[in-house]
């Protein structure tokens, strides 16, 4: 147990250091940071002085160490384009992204699981075939195309939903939420549906496959032989046993939701971190890019670590095997 834990944590730290290194080299070697900070008319002495002040003449390892120390205290410098500390910018935008991701995750689970259960139980009905076909189409539709179609139908044609922004927000200290206004919820609908659609199809297919698997097992046959009601068998026995992998995948996919929120936020002009990042990429705003890179890597690494550890707790078989990289399904 302890060795498994330590190995996992060490791995996570190595990955984070690698990402930090990438982010650091982007900062320092992709273009001259001094050039990005001073104006055209700065003299050679000014540049040399700034170079000294920024510590760019220090040995490599010292600079990298300083970068990591700064990153740990949330210090990523000042955005070239917006001229404001990157921490503030990200803290401002984070609630919007997290709320969008949370609503999408709930939506994907709330629609994907029932659909999957239905397709698993009634596998040959025309309706479940229909759902499966739709899900293949759903996989082929790029996120932004779904968003554009939704905007065209519900905002341009019907005028029913706002097509951009967050609507009304209420402030709790630094956290701005759109959960408390009708307007905010209306603005949430289309982005959340767009973002969750792919996850919904994924969860639906997974639940269906797991249900088909479980339905073949002996304990389901035995439950039938005992004369339990269909409802008790389907939901009490079968569904319960499919949920462990589903929750794992759903957890791992929170990272994917954050990544794909970049696209959704661009389509709907949702003022979150993704929009900030994509603007930073097109303006080559390195401090924001490297901060986002580190932040997203942190999210991914922590989710993976938590899921691996949870698996270890849930699945006793892993305690016998050596717990290498095979901790996950598939």
């Amino acid at each position, binding site marked *: 147990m302890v060795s498994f834990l330590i190995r996992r944590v060490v791995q996570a730290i190595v990955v984070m250091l690698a990402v930090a290194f990438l982010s650091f080299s982007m900062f320092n*070697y992709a273009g001259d940071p001094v050039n990005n900070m001073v104006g055209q008319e700065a003299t050679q002495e000014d540049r040399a002085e700034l170079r000294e002040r920024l510590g760019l003449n220090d040995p490599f390892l010292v600079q990298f160490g300083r970068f990591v120390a700064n990153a740990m205290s949330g210090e990523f410098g000042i955005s070239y384009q917006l001229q404001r500390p990157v921490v503030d910018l990200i803290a401002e935008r984070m609630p919007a992204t997290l709320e969008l991701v949370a609503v999408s995750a709930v939506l994907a689970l709330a629609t994907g699981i029932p659909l999957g259960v239905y397709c698993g139980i009634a596998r040959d009905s025309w309706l479940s075939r229909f759902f499966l076909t739709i899900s293949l189409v759903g996989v*082929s539709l790029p996120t932004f*195309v779904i968003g*554009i179609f939704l905007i065209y139908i519900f905002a341009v044609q019907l005028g029913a939903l706002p097509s951009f922004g967050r609507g009304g927000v209420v402030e709790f200290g630094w956290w701005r939420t759109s959960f408390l206004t009708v307007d905010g919820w209306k603005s949430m609908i289309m982005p959340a549906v767009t973002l969750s659609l792919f996850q919904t199809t994924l969860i639906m297919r997974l639940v269906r496959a797991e249900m088909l698997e479980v339905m073949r097992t002996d304990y389901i046959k035995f439950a039938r032989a005992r004369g339990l009601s269909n409802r008790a068998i389907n939901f009490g026995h079968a569904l319960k046993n499919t949920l462990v992998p589903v929750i794992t995948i759903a957890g791992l996919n929170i990272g994917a939701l954050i*990544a794909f929120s970049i*696209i959704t936020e*661009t389509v709907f002009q949702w003022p979150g971190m993704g929009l900030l990042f*994509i603007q930073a990429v*097109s303006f080559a705003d390195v401090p924001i890019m490297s901060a986002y890179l580190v932040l997203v*890597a942190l999210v991914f690494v922590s989710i993976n670590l938590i899921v691996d550890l949870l698996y270890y707790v849930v699945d006793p078989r892993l305690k016998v095997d050596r717990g290498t990289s095979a901790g996950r399904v598939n």
Partner: protein
Amino acid sequence: MATTPDTPNTAPGLIARVRDSDLWFSFTRSPVVMVAAAITAFYFLAAIFAPLVAPQKPFDPANLSLADSFTAPAWTEDGLPQYLLGTDDQGRDILSTLIYGARISLLVGFAAVIFSACLGIALGVTAGYVGGSFEAIVMRTADVQLTVPGILVALMIDGVARTAMPRELHDQIAIYVVIFAIGVSDWPQYARVTRGATLVEKGKEYVQAARVMGIHPLLIMLRHIMPNVMSPVLVLATIGLALAIIAEATLSFLGVGVPPTTPSLGTLIRIGNNFLFSGEWWITFFPCLALVGLVLSVNLLGDWLRDALNPRLR
């Protein structure tokens, strides 16, 4: 091999072999796949012969008349017969931009798939054959990268390239940057599959015989192992093509893909998106439709290929 002895040249033998194969059999049995193959072939031909089939040269300013901009599709009231799908804000014929756009999309998609397949196969086969710490490093990197969505990796590479190069240079080579970014984001799939297959092949007698004969390891990997690990790669590459086309379209839609001077389907959607609210729906609708049609048919082909080549499903 059931080639008949009385066929002197190889061409009829090849056709006969294709006709007798399981793949062809399952192909003729599923109408959906045949339609998908026809649509894909249609896209390919249109893209290859773009200058011949497109009604207009959309990116030659001499050809455009601004007076014709924002013309609706031909079947609507305001449409003009020479512009079947209407025109955009510059007076470019939408159908022609679609044909040229599909050309760029397919080009980038293919190049990215070839690049990531080469990278993945090279790393995977070498990792499987050499083993040791090289294998450990390659496979750990692949594992870590697989947990991150490909589009994020591609975005990061694109962003770094943007910072590292001056603007003019970047605009010139943007298309190669996109190919590189998408290619790098997808290599772990190929590496995993080929490494697994290499581990199996490595233990077989023909490889051991080659080794005993003193053939150079590089040659063994290239000439003996690689041909035998390629069939799963074909399936991966087909599905990878659909993914690469989506990735390119997404990058271009986000404004960080191929430059607007050589627009792909994604760029066209990005341009058209600006006119969605003023009622010119066709500027963005047809590129969306073209993209979805292409991706869906390639996906269907990939799904079919995976099932048809998988002996466990027979």
